[in-house]
């Protein structure tokens, strides 16, 4: 029997709130954090809505030397990790054990730093950039910052897999603990792409909505970029019990799959189904044992349709009665952090029996889904499946289960 992996801490900063409590409250209230973009040269953007982190004020929280050293993507990760570790009650000796690791994903790394450096050398014709440009922009900067902040000497990794970065991090954390490499893994993702060029890049791909994210709605027209960080403390059950840590949910299974070719930015229903099936098999349950699905559901026409098709094939006629959450309608798509932010929504459903709504829109009847929309739904949820389908054809699925 595989070593069971419990979730003993949670932390986040995202558009919905500056910590877990505010995020869960906003999810339960169905409050959308999508609003106007405020980056410089916003007048040159065609897409002017996003879900930005507004609290806390990073300038007030971090001293100048920290802000000098770290890009926004790392500062967000630091706040999320500190909150998760505090909730887990991990002490310095546990953090500095060689058996404690950090796996923190990001798709873009220090995009603001890249943007500023390129602006300096290309647009402004300058011949030098700030000396900390490289350590600020490197994709492993958030993982490194968290590891340094917490005094981690065990394995520290940064999976970068577009929208699946945090899902890969959580899956790797699960396997590190199952395999006995680690007892504790601080895992999740961080993203901060709401810069002029960051939004421009997504604009070019024509996947962003100009007016809001409406997952699975008939009039859905794209996703809305978000930002933020979310971190879970994953811990071997034996280790958690020995130190008296509280845990209500386990990460029961995970799967990572390549799409096997095809269009790198068009999701495949077959591949989506395969990864969800594999995650359930890893958790040792069949589709009939799933009470709730937290969908990837970015709000694009093709992506949502492919996902709905995959869910219908996986669950059969039962899909019409299986509550589906699509919370990117509230917190936007935080790309490499999204799977970890959505894991918090899964925990809300599992721990408090509250499934957050996707927004105030209706559901496309052609999709045949029981989408939770309008307001949160009370439901008894013991097992939750959460899926992520990333550009580049990298898919992931996670299974969360309540523990007694």
């Amino acid at each position, binding site marked *: 029997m595989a070593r069971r992996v419990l979730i003993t801490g949670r932390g986040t900063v995202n558009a919905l709130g500056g910590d877990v409590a505010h995020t869960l409250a906003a999810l339960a209230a169905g409050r959308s954090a999508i609003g106007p973009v405020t980056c410089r040269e916003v007048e040159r953007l065609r897409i002017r809505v996003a879900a930005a982190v507004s609290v806390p004020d990073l300038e007030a929280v971090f001293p*100048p*030397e920290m802000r*000098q*050293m770290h890009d926004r993507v790392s500062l967000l990760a630091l706040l999320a990790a500190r909150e998760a570790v505090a909730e887990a009650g991990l002490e310095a000796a546990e953090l500095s054990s060689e058996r404690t690791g950090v796996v923190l994903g990001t798709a873009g790394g220090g995009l603001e730093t890249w943007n500023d450096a390129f602006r300096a050398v290309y647009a402004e014709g300058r011949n*030098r950039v*700030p*000396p*900390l440009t490289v*350590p600020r922009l490197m994709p492993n900067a958030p993982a490194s910052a968290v590891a340094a902040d917490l005094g981690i000497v065990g394995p520290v990794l940064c999976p970068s897999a577009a929208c699946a970065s945090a899902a890969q991090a959580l899956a790797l954390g699960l396997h590190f603990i199952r395999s006995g490499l680690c007892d504790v893994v601080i895992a999740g993702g961080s993203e901060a792409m709401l810069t002029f060029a960051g939004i421009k890049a997504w604009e070019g791909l024509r996947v962003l909505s100009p007016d809001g994210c409406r997952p699975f709605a008939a009039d859905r027209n794209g996703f809305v970029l978000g930002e933020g960080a979310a971190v879970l403390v994953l811990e071997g059950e034996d280790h958690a019990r020995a130190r008296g840590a509280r845990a209500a949910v386990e990460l029961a299974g995970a799967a990572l799959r390549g799409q096997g070719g095809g269009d790198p930015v068009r999701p495949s229903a077959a591949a989506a189904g395969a990864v969800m099936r594999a995650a359930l098999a890893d958790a040792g349950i069949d589709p009939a044992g799933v009470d709730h699905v937290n969908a990837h559901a970015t709000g694009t026409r093709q992506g949502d349709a492919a996902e709905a098709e995959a869910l219908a094939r996986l669950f059969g006629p039962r899909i019409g009665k299986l509550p589906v959450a699509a919370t990117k309608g509230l917190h936007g798509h935080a790309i490499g952090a999204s799977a970890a932010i959505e894991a918090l929504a899964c925990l809300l459903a599992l721990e408090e029996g509250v499934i957050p709504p996707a927004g105030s829109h209706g559901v496309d009847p052609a999709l045949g889904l029981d989408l939770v929309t309008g307001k949160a739904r009370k439901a008894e949820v013991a097992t939750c499946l959460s899926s992520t389908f990333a550009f580049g054809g990298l898919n992931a699925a996670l299974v969360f289960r309540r523990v007694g």
Partner: protein
Amino acid sequence: MGAATDRDATGDPALLPLLRSVLAEEGLVPPEAVTPQAELEALGLDSVRMTQVIFALEERLDITFPFDGEGAPPRTVADLARLVARLRGGGV
């Protein structure tokens, strides 16, 4: 590098206020600790802080510091002042 004379020991005195302000702003060093004799390492200027200081001096004075290995690195504030004075004078 010649032997230090009294004048060399403090570098260009006119540079001290500038160095004090840059070391305080970019190096996060208390201004009162910035004396000609103070050793840069003892002021808490690790490699990261030192690169910040060099960047700020380059930007403010429109000079270019040599890369590592081209001459001995400055050890004290006076060494730094001497180096800056030389770079401003056009010679290295």
